[in-house]
């Protein structure tokens, strides 16, 4: 390589050097990324700022009164209907992320430690259902859990129940089951990545020093994979809190979540500032909950060592 450089005519060398001086690495890198960066800035950051601004304003029919007010936040936090929806959404997203992580961990462990040559095939198998339409996956749960659904007709066919159960669909559990299924693949990938990074010799060392398989798992592998568990929990928790489709299709009256209320404010109810305040409140609370989750997992990780 160096031989080629030294052998090239001097004219070209100076041109290359001038180019290198004019276009330093940071300048080139920033110039290259700027279109994408500005796209995200204009269509993500700016809109979020606009939402935050709206949350402090008031709507009078078709006009927006831009006097600063905290009234929307008072309504969002104290009106029983919104408070309940907020709590339910947080409860659902916390439960779903707990379930997905617990269900996903053994799979990630299996692929990482026992996957052998077929690791990438396993990962592909697991991500495939995720690439099918979310709407259709939620709908298939409706087909399974419905009054005339697969589960009811199956249980009746087996003679376990006499008449279809209405307890399966249109409640919080239906929402939790559907979301746990929908987000399964998302939790596996980060846990798998962190398990891959676990130094296998450390596990061997623990075993050599007399730790049993369970003990060496609890004291070496599990704590070392904590970063993956943290990202898996967050990657499920934050988006599910604002899920709209699942509660609407399988949640019924008892499974309504905050996103449905936010949508109503931008649709029928036409109260943008209240919708904005509900969005901002949801984001803030889910951020706090995510932060608390990180702290708890880190504390458990220290305890285990």
């Amino acid at each position, binding site marked *: 390589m160096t031989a080629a450089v030294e052998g090239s005519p001097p004219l070209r060398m100076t041109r290359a050097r001038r180019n290198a001086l004019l276009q330093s690495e940071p300048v080139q890198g920033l110039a290259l990324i700027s279109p994408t960066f500005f796209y995200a800035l204009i269509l*993500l950051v700016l809109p979020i700022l606009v939402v935050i601004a709206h949350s402090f304003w008031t709507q009078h029919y078709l006009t927006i009164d831009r006097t600063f007010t905290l009234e929307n936040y008072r309504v969002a936090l104290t009106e029983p209907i919104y408070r309940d929806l907020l709590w339910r959404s947080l409860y659902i997203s916390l439960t779903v992320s707990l379930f997905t992580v617990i269900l996903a961990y053994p799979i990630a462990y299996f692929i990482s430690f026992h996957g052998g040559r077929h690791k990438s095939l396993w990962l592909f198998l697991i991500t495939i259902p995720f690439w099918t339409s979310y709407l259709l996956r939620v709908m298939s749960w409706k087909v399974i859990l419905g009054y005339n*659904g697969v589960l009811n007709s199956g249980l009746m066919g087996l003679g376990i129940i006499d008449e279809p159960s209405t307890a399966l669909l249109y409640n919080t559990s239906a929402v939790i089951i559907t979301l746990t299924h929908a987000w399964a693949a998302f939790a596996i990938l980060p846990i798998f990545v962190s398990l891959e990074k676990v130094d296998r010799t450390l596990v061997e060392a623990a075993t050599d020093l007399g730790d049993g398989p369970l003990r060496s798992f609890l004291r070496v592998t599990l704590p070392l994979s904590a970063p993956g568990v943290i990202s898996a929990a967050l990657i499920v928790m934050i988006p599910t809190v604002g899920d709209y489709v699942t509660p609407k299709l399988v949640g019924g009256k008892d499974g309504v979540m905050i996103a449905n209320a936010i949508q109503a404010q931008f649709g029928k109810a036409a109260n943008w500032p209240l919708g904005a305040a509900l969005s901002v409140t949801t984001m803030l609370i*889910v951020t706090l909950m995510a932060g608390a989750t990180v702290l708890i997992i880190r504390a458990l990780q220290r305890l285990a060592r």
Partner: protein
Amino acid sequence: MRARRFLPGGWLSAYAFLYIVFLYLPVIFLPIFSINTAPTPKFPLAGYTLKWYEDLPNTPALLDAAWNSLVVGVSASVLATVLGILAARSITRYRYPGRRTINGLIMAPLVLPEVIVAISMLLVMLQLGLSLSLFTVVLGHVLVCIPYSMTVLTSGFEGFDRSLEEASADLGESAFGTFRRVTLPMVAPAIISSLLVCFTISLDEFIIAFFLTGTEATLPIYIWGQLRFASKLPGVLALGTLLLVASFLLMTIAEILRRRAARRTQNEGGLYA
């Protein structure tokens, strides 16, 4: 020496099998009930028929929605991939301050609740006086596709041997020429893979399209409208099955290409280094 592992592999394999069943089972009911004669989805099946599929091409609203989805999907995947190429190239090739922050911002739509992304874009578009149309849907889809495009492309660009490009520059090729004649052929599979992934996402995306479209429906919006009528369910199941097969094929091709791209950059880079 192999360390003994927590939980024998046999139990884990059984669990893995059950987990795969849990993942795939709900999805499999769509094709099963789409060939059922009875309109209600329950066992035992009443009989086999393809009439729900035969009805699909005779539904003008569905054909319109399919065309709209195609237009949106192609535009969004091309735009997102172009923006993804620029960003992925910058992230993998250059080192500069603020790199991680900018990357984090670009990847952020992946971990934000979609409803909030959708309504904030809706507010800005209405403020800017843009009328809602398929164009606004494309703008939204590009934003949510870029993170996926970036993931596919960085895995294709990483491990790419820089000395190949340096050699090309040293031999007098311009920056653009180097990109076109050296970089592009190496990363072409990753780019096609990114296009397919983005198209699949756009084809299936509902929330953003739901908020940002005017009167024109995309396929998921059409399906959403049909879901209100129990009698329309078999048709929706048939359409869903077709979409399922399309997504599956697109993703399989995308994955094969992504792997080929990763292998190509690593192997050939190693050969010439």
